[in-house]
């Protein structure tokens, strides 16, 4: 018998939040703390969106996106969640880059970055300081015509090695390329450069569990396995949503789903002005990802080789190479037992950027073979850092853009939301339909753990304003 996942919902809520990514969760929490009645709907059985994890036999737990975020996440968690969540954030100190151009280890904080730039790349201190302060001064409303490529060319002309040093980690973090606006790069890179790279001790399961408890404490009606099929609109105003076939009324709706599927699928083009739809159609989705999950046998150990390894065999940084199906560029996130204190298990997650179209239209047989190739190529590459890796693993699995699409329902499995132009469309929804809001990865700067959580707060402020 099918369980009714929407049993005993109220007939009306102040706000219905669709999707429980970091932005949806944070938005729901802020609004509930503000005294509004909130229904949070998630189609998956876990909360978190891409901030998720899965368990496999042999005692393995794999974190999907816990690669590292900026120090700002501590403050965001303290202010918009609770001190316990903020206190479980710790620094990841071993960031390693290894490619044909250079091989080095850094904490990627401001001081160490300057050291590496001086000692390794022989850049005068003054140029580095100017570069760092130029990035710090960037705001999202600044001039967007300068590209990241032009920014780099201004400071480090002809230096492909430096481009790689400062760009490759960010490309893995948010899918951006040298053609994206310089301000999107500057804002995100400054956030990381501030104090380095941080993570949650205890793993994604712990943090999402703590967030869930906080939401419930604050009175949010949390429902998983509830798929929203439609957002109801009456006279250009929000009426409610249809979830698992049931109509639930709401004064406002915040979609934490993909921006474009929110517009075209959940709401429907007919409910927007023609000019808005025209602009929305110009919004480019960001790329997707592939991952390989490697579970180390219980009792096996691996030596400390760094926390985050950016590796590549490509001659220089090339975002097309990074996304290609046969890329040699990937990030290894190494999860040692201290990731989950009390555990004795190791796991490694390799991530690469990917194009949905390279994976979407393969035959079942070809798809399976491609996944197996991806796993084998990844193991070959890891062998350099963890000798005899094949003897140490007892669990292997791969995820492709199709996998990301299935679990997040993002169009084309987009794992970093939209390009910059998506921000304006996301923020423009309430002007088209009264009570309709969007939050989540958009515009590159509102992407990642910190960007998404903060965007959730920004939108919660708009919703609160609308309701009061």
């Amino acid at each position, binding site marked *: 018998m099918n369980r009714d996942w929407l049993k005993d919902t109220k007939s009306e809520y102040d706000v219905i939040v669709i999707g429980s990514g970091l932005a949806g969760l944070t938005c729901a929490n802020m609004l509930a703390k*503000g005294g509004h009645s909130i229904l949070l709907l998630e189609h998956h059985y876990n909360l978190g969106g891409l901030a998720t994890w899965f368990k496999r036999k042999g005692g393995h737990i794999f974190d999907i996106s816990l690669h590292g975020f900026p120090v*700002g996440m501590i*403050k*965001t968690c303290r*202010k918009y969640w609770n001190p316990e969540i903020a206190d479980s954030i710790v620094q990841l100190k071993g960031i390693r880059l290894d490619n044909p151009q250079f091989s080095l280890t850094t904490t990627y904080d401001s001081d160490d970055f300057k050291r590496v730039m001086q000692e390794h790349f022989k850049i005068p201190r003054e140029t580095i300081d100017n570069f760092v302060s130029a990035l710090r001064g960037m*705001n999202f409303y600044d001039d967007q015509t300068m590209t990241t490529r032009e920014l780099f060319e201004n400071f480090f002309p002809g230096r492909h090695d430096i481009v790689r040093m400062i760009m490759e980690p960010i490309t893995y973090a948010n899918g951006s390329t040298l053609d994206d606006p310089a301000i999107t790069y500057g804002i995100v890179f400054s956030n990381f450069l501030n104090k380095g790279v941080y993570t949650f001790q205890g793993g994604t399961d712990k943090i999402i569990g703590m967030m869930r408890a906080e939401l419930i404490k604050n009175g949010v009606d949390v429902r998983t396995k509830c798929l929203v099929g439609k957002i109801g609109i009456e006279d250009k105003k929000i009426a409610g949503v249809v979830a698992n076939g049931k109509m639930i009324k709401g004064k406002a709706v915040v979609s934490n789903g993909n921006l474009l599927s929110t517009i075209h699928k959940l709401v429907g083009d007919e409910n927007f002005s023609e000019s808005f739809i025209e602009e929305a159609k110009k919004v480019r989705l960001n790329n997707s990802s592939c991952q390989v999950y490697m579970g180390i046998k219980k009792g096996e150990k691996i030596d400390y080789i760094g926390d985050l390894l950016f590796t590549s065999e490509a001659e220089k940084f090339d975002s097309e190479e990074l996304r290609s199906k046969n890329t040699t560029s990937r990030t290894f996130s190494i999860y040692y037992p201290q990731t989950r204190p009390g555990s004795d298990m190791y796991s490694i997650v390799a991530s690469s950027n990917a194009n949905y179209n390279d994976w979407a239209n393969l035959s079942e047989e070809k798809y399976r073979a491609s996944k197996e190739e991806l796993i084998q190529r990844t193991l070959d590459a890891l062998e350099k850092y963890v000798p005899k890796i094949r003897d140490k693993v007892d669990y292997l699995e791969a995820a492709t853009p199709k996998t990301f699409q299935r679990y997040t329902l993002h169009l084309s499995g987009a794992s970093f939301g939209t390009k910059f132009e998506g921000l304006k469309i996301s923020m423009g929804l309430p002007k088209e339909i009264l009570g309709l809001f969007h939050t989540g990865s958009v515009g590159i700067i509102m992407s990642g753990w910190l960007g998404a959580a*903060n965007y959730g*707060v*920004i939108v919660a*402020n708009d919703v*609160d*304003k609308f309701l*009061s």
Partner: protein
Amino acid sequence: MTKEETKSVLMEIVAQIIPDEDLTNLKGDIPIREQVELDSMDFLDIIMELRKRYGIEVPEDDYIQLATIDSSVAYLEPRMRDL
């Protein structure tokens, strides 16, 4: 609320939002962000707190008027006079 009360309320909100910063020597006529660590999210928190506590709505176009303590008090005073 008098002008002095408005100022003390504002300072209390700022202190609550950036508890780790020392506000004793904050100058009234210099942008707050140039004197202490106050990022754009902290600024938004001030806006939200003003709404929550006093029902004051600061439209985005007016954010610039809250750059310094003095200009904030000048902006808020007429809006808080009857509270």
